[in-house]
Structure formats: C-alpha cells, structure tokens
C-alpha cells in the first residue's frame, strides 16, 4: 500500500462522500482525486521525477491537500513547510532537500521569485489562492494552480512508486539549531497511520476537525488518517478563533478533536454552553503532557467523549498512547507502545531497566522512520542497530520511567529543547538569530513555565556598544523566526553565568 492509495481507495469506495471541508468549500473524494490527478500530470510535465522533493509552503487549505497527493501521484516526496517560516529558513530547507518545485500562496509571488534565485534546484513554483493568476506574470517559472489543473486530464497518472520509496520529509528542530528532515517511507506512514486508526477505533463515520498546521506531523496525519478510513476532515487554518471552530464543530457534527495542551488550556477558559458538542466521540492530546488538573477539567466538560493521552516524536510519528480506561488510575502516564510496536527503557550503559528506574525510551517497530535527510551522523546517533539483522531502532532522547504494570511516564528531555504551543523549539536556533543582531555579544534562550503555552520562550541578551530595546530584538526575531519561536520575554543582562570552560550556564538563569 502507498500513501496516495488512502485517497485513491476512498475515491472508489466513497466516491461522492464529502472528504474535505475548508472555509466555504466542500469537496468529495472524487473531486479531490480528480484535482490531484490533474495536478500530478502538470508536475510530471514540468519535470518532477521519481523521488524529487516538492515543497508545500501554504496555510491549511484545499490546495495544500491537493498538492500533497499530487506530489505523491507524481512519484515525488512532499515536504510541508510551516506557513509562518521566514525567507532565510525557507531557503535553507529548500536547499537542504534540493526541492524541484514549490507550492505557495499567490501573495508570495515575489518571495517565490527570490527563493528561486537562491535555490538552484528549484525549477518552478505553483501559486495558489486569489492572487495567483495576476502573480504568474512575475516570472515564467511561476504558474497559477487553477491554470495547471484546468490544463490536464483527471485520469490517474501511471506511478512507479513502491512502498520502500520516501513519501515525505518532515522538518523538525534540531539541537544544533538547524532543522532536520525526517525521512518517512511510504511503508512507515502506512504502518503508523494504521496503528493509530486501530487504537482510536476510527471508522468512515468519523468527522475530524484539524486546527494544527499540516507541517506538524500531528496535523498532517489527521489528513492522511481520515482519507485512509474514508471519513470527513474539517480543515481549519488555526485555532486563532476558538468560537468559530466550535461553531463549525457543532454544525458539522465533528466526532474527533486532536489538540495540544495550549489548545485545551484555551478551551478550558471558555464557556462552552452555547455550543452543542454532543457529537464528539474522542479528544486526543500529544506534543506535551496535559497537567492532571486539565485532564480532570476536560473530562468534566466533555463527559461523553473519550480522552486519549499520547506521546510521540516526528522520528517515529507516534510512540505511546494511554488506554482511556487507565486515565483515572494513572493520569500522569502517557501509556504503552502503540499497536504492533514495542518500547523499553535503557540506562546510560545500554542496559534495559525495570519499573521505577529512569532511562532513555527506546522504540522498535515499522513506524521508526528512515533517519534524517542527508545527515548520516545525526541519524547514527538516534537510529541504531536493533536486535535483528538489518533492523534499526530509535533512541528518543527522552527520559522515561515505567510503573509495575508497564505504563510509561515522561520525565524530561535529555537535551534543552523547548516545547511551546506543542511545537519543538531549539534554543540554539533562537540564539543564532539573536547573535545575528549587531551589538548582541551573548545570548541564551530557555523555556519558562506558562499556563497557556506550556513553556514560554525567554531570551537573555548581553549587548555591547549599541543601544538596543526589547522592541529592536523582537522586530529582528519576528523577521527571522516562525511565530511560535519568537520569545515572549527578553531580559537584558550585563553578563551571563558561565561554566568552568567558559560556556554559558543556563541552569544559573
């Protein structure tokens, strides 16, 4: 099975069923299949070859969904980039994966032209949305989405892909500060999505709302899973307008709501009485742990729905889930290995440890991805040989412990990575941006507890020779970082604490 079969099979089984609801648009499986086929022909005709990377730099939209499946149908590898990514990082990612083509919004026409000049591999860009048609005159390698789909037939193109080929690269923050592309084979995605569908008991009756960006594996898999089980996806741009999302959930009779702790914290502050959410069958949480008090409060607000606490990392998609009947007994646990996989805990010397002892979580199964794109060194650190020949297992980088019955509890990360709004933030990446400001001689970034964000980002800077205000620092950060990476707090110091070897010591901040 291939990832595009999720759409293709549902287009055959549920031809005229609504597959996707986005803003005022409602599309059936047959309509999305036809659009993706048309666009796949257009990609192939413009030079996309088997295994070529094609980037999708778009907000959650119909075009983003069509692009993902069109790229797969053209035998390519899709790379979804967070739509708040700034130019320099976008260029870094496109150069890193040597992207052949780029999908972006019509309003980004001039950005697309600049990016093309900086990324030699990039042959063309497809512009989407209202301003696409006018923008296509900017350069002859820019095409309007609508023009391309009109020019090609809705028949399914021949595709040589097998399940050992890569389906996507998912870029994630690395401790070095540079994003790394996690390589997912079709077989990995097929296995991981199947395992999750199994424990969530998803059926074609499910209607799932997704407010998470498709660049985030948790958001992307909502699309992939819904298309696989033939349900309906209600795709929202974000959770910026909770009331609008809740109204949509009520009118569409949504059954599944995947969230992260920040989203649930906002929900818990709202009066939900004006909304009829009785259709909700389940809620899922991952990306960071829900505080036990929020678990209790959520269950009080949605007594008819099941809450799943989960844990995962992009390097293997999902790792653990807590059976809902265990939530009262062990609210602090994120559960057991997802179906068809196994996990254990190892100490620093590589010995498996038993209950009550902390160590690194190690993950084994077909959901363990292929490693980091063109980064064999980091890949070798995290993906190591497993118990059977040729196999690789994943070292999570997270410290866990287990109780007597085998349920797992997250303790801490082994590195200093921050989790804010459920997204991973590399302190190093933010520090690199701070160091690029004239006059900043020292910078350190840490996460501080925050009731809504989970962790807020706090920057400490030492400035010499020039006058800089907090606003100057934030202007620069906003221009160079995705919005979830921009610090909430900036503190000016005359110096930062150091270790004996002269490195900045963050524990002293």
């Amino acid at each position, binding site marked *: 099975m291939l990832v595009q079969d999720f759409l293709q099979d549902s287009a055959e089984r549920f031809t005229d069923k609504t597959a996707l609801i986005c803003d005022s648009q409602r599309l059936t499986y047959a309509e999305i299949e036809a659009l993706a086929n048309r666009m796949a022909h257009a990609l192939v005709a413009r030079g996309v070859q088997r295994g070529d990377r094609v980037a999708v730099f778009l*907000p959650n939209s119909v075009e983003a969904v069509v692009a993902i499946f069109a790229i797969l149908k053209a035998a390519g590898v899709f790379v979804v980039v967070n739509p708040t990514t700034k130019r320099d990082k976008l260029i870094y990612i496109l150069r890193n994966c040597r992207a052949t083509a780029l999908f972006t919004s019509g309003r980004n026409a001039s950005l697309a032209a600049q990016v093309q000049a900086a990324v030699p591999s990039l042959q063309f860009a497809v512009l989407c949305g209202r301003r696409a048609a006018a923008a296509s005159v900017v350069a002859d390698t820019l095409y309007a989405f609508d023009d391309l789909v009109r020019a090609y037939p809705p028949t399914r193109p021949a595709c040589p892909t097998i399940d050992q080929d890569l389906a996507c690269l998912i870029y994630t923050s690395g401790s070095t500060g540079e994003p790394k592309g996690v390589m997912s084979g079709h077989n990995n995605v097929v296995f991981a999505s199947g395992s999750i569908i199994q424990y969530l008991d998803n059926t074609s009756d499910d209607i799932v709302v997704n407010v998470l960006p498709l660049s985030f594996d948790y958001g992307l898999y909502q699309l992939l899973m819904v298309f696989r089980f033939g349900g309906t996806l209600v795709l929202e741009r974000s959770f*910026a307008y909770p009331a609008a999302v809740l109204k949509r959930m009520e009118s569409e009779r949504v059954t599944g709501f995947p969230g992260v702790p920040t989203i649930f914290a906002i929900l818990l502050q709202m009066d939900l009485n*004006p909304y009829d959410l009785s259709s909700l069958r389940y809620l899922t949480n991952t990306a960071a742990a829900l505080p036990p008090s929020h678990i209790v409060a959520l269950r009080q607000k949605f007594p008819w729905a099941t809450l799943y606490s989960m844990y995962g990392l992009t390097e293997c998609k999902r790792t653990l889930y807590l059976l809902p009947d265990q939530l009262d007994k062990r609210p602090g646990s994120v559960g057991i290995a997802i179906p068809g996989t196994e996990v254990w805990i190892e100490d620093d010397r590589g010995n498996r440890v038993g209950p009550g002892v902390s160590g690194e979580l190690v993950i084994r199964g077909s959901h363990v991805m292929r490693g980091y794109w063109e980064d064999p060194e980091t890949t070798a650190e995290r993906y190591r040989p497993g118990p059977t020949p040729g196999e690789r297992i994943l070292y999570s980088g997270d410290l866990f412990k287990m109780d007597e019955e085998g349920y797992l509890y997250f303790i801490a990360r082994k590195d200093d990575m921050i989790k804010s709004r459920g997204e991973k933030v590399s302190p190093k990446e933010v520090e690199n941006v701070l160091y690029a400001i004239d006059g900043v001689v020292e910078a350190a970034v840490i996460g501080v507890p925050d009731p*809504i964000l989970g962790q807020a980002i706090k920057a400490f800077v030492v400035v010499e020779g020039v006058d800089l205000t907090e606003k100057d620092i934030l*202007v620069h950060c906003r221009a160079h970082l995705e919005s979830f990476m921009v610090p909430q707090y900036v503190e000016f110091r005359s110096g930062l604490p150091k270790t004996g070897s002269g490195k900045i010591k963050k524990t002293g901040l």
Partner: protein
Amino acid sequence: MTIETQVKQYVAENFLFTDDGYRFSEDASFLEEGIVDSTGVLELVMFVEETFDIAVQDEEIVPENFDSVSCLAAYVRHKLGQPA
C-alpha cells in the same frame, strides 16, 4: 483619534514592532497576511476590552469581528452603540 487609527497603532507597535506605522490596507486579513498570529488574537481581545472599556464575549471572537482593522473598528463601534 479614530478607532481605526488606534487599532493600527496598537497592531504596528505590538505585532509588527515598527515605528513607521501600519503598512497594510484597512481590509487586509490579519491572519492571511501574517500580521497577527494565532495567539495574537487573544492579545487583540484584551486590547479592545481595555482601550474601549467593552466586554468581549467568547462567541464574538470570530474573524468577522477581529480579522482586519476595518472589521475590528466596526465591531468596536457596534459595541459602543455608535453609528457604523
């Protein structure tokens, strides 16, 4: 100062961090243009509550009221009982 001017000034100072004012049209979508991000909407709510002394209900926090300078100004006027 008009409501539009106050909104533009607040957004420019708190989201765009610029001194050269608000460079977008009054109808530009805050989210689509990346002017305000998803958590910024809650800050906008606090801003209008404090500045114009109005109580914003959860169900009023929708794009029709908050997603551009002109939407927000119209919403504030409506809450204050002023003509549009």
